[in-house]
């Protein structure tokens, strides 16, 4: 109804604005959502470089060449070589794969598990207190410390890093989903569905779940960013991916002893990590503004 009144009123507006220039759809999107556009473009670029790493002028990132160690960045070694003569450009580019794999997997698993826990405790009131106390407890252990403690128990592997970081991120998603569920349950349309005798699974599937998707998507983006930082941090202090795998944290950990004389070893992975996390955060900020205006106003 309201849209028709708006349409009726539109022609009566004084034509003070200059006629809008015809823009392409892409330009229009970039203009409306600059963060999504810039962040998304960068993320796509980084994804592409991870996928096509073998064809982007790289050599074997683990190939040792002791004769050519610690070369400065040059035409043959774009980012130089490390103390074992490995090509840093290749290592950094392959490191993108590890970071993205960890970031995306953690975001995915933490969202799924968090969604399940959040829905359960939002609907099954007997479980709610217990589950939320456990989540409070988990959240009271600073994330990196929890991940460190978990990694200390297991062998370092990419899979274990993903599990450890996922465990630290699940409580946040659970709380978020539970909050959304509790507020949705009070909505008249959900009450109406309950009054009409709709079964709980159908209410969850048709009314609750779709409404949690937007905040979860936004949250998942931020989790991806923070997981990549945590992975690099864990590897950097020697509690992450095994040193044989070229991840950004590992390259920096190896360059650590030499950073005062050969800062470029630490510099390149650091730049890649920062730019990647920044792009994902930008994308998340943009998604939040676009998908969840209420949340955007709050932060």
């Amino acid at each position, binding site marked *: 109804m309201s849209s028709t009144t708006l349409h009726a009123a539109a022609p009566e507006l004084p034509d003070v604005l200059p006629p809008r220039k015809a823009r392409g759809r892409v330009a229009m999107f970039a203009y409306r959502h600059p963060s999504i556009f810039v962040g998304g473009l960068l993320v796509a670029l980084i994804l592409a470089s991870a996928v096509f790493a073998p064809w982007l002028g790289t050599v074997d990132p683990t190939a040792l060449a002791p004769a050519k160690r610690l070369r400065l960045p040059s035409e043959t070694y774009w980012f130089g070589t490390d103390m074992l003569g490995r090509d840093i450009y290749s290592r950094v580019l392959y490191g993108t794969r590890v970071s993205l794999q960890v970031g995306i997997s953690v975001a995915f698993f933490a969202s799924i598990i968090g969604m399940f826990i959040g829905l359960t405790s939002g609907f099954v009131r007997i479980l709610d207190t217990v589950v939320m106390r456990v989540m409070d*407890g988990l959240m*009271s252990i*600073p994330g*990196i410390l929890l991940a*460190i*403690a978990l990694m200390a128990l297991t062998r370092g592997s990419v899979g274990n890093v993903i599990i450890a970081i996922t465990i630290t991120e699940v409580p946040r998603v659970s709380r978020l989903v539970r909050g959304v569920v509790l507020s949705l349950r009070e909505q008249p349309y959900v009450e109406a569905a309950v009054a009409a005798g709709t079964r709980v699974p159908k209410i969850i599937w048709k009314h609750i779940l779709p409404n949690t998707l937007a905040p979860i998507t936004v949250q998942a983006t931020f989790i991806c960013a923070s997981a990549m930082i945590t992975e690099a*941090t864990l590897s950097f202090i020697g509690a992450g991916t095994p040193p044989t795998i070229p991840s950004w944290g590992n390259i920096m950990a190896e360059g650590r002893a030499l*950073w005062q004389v050969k800062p470029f070893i630490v510099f390149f992975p650091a730049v890649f990590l920062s730019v990647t996390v920044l792009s994902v955060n*930008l994308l998340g900020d943009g998604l939040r503004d676009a998908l969840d205006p209420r949340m955007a106003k709050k*932060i």
Partner: protein
Amino acid sequence: MFAYIVRRIVATIPVVAIVALFIFSLLYFAPGDPAAIIAGDQASPADVERIRASLGLDRPFVVRFAEWSWQVLHGDLGVSIFTNLPVTKMIGQRIEPTVSLMLLTLLLAISTAVPLGVLAAWKQGTWIDRLVMMIAVSGFSVPVFVVGYILAYVFALSLDWFPVQGYTPFSLSDPLPWLRNLILPAMALGLAFVALIARITRATMLEVLSQDYIRTARAKGVGQRPILFLHALKNAAVPIVTIIGIGFAGLIGGAVVTESVFAIPGVGRLVVDAILRRDYPIIQGVVLILSFVYVLVNLGVDLLYTLFDPRIRY
């Protein structure tokens, strides 16, 4: 209000219990059998079994957890596998640099971030606002050790204004060496915290500034500065203090890494070294203590509300 304070304190007990249970399980499930290690290579399975029984390791999980909790409540966190020293003593030796670093970081971060956030809210939509928000997003995105290396490279290696690494204990007679050593680590650790606080400050200030009583204050001719800092900031205090409490977790985690970058002999270095040696009692003790600190900080924050904001009644 007294009832609320009591209730809030009581409510932290289950949280602390869950943290303790979780951290105890970590040691319980840790690989490696202490009895076998003590018995040595030549021991027969019967010997290992006897040592296990004498250490009480053969008893059920619940019994051992209860006993361990009892010890923790009496300030006993066990003995380091590597040095054979009590964990509490080892942590005690390393606590001063960590506390120094965190206090200085808090001081630096809050005193930069709150004015930045107020400024951004005041100049909303201008380039100043955008600049502050850009700094905030970057602050979230650049890991603390990267910031650390950049700062150390620029201000210590190139400009030689500060020492590159190391730590000098605090002394009242001459605190300058202490400050010179800690200023770069505190800046590195503080950046993400600045980003967090500045963002919340801006958002809350914007909300407060749009309220009626601010308009009234403007209408009766109150100047810009008193409006911002007296009328608005005071009412924006609660969310800002909350985020400082929540952000404290990040600060603790960041301190572990910062200490490694700047070679500060604190609790963080202790835990990093313990990881490399698989010294589980130390890992367990540090994680437990730092988690308790975090819980206590947030308890303190919650109790501060009632002082800060008389509107909050429970």
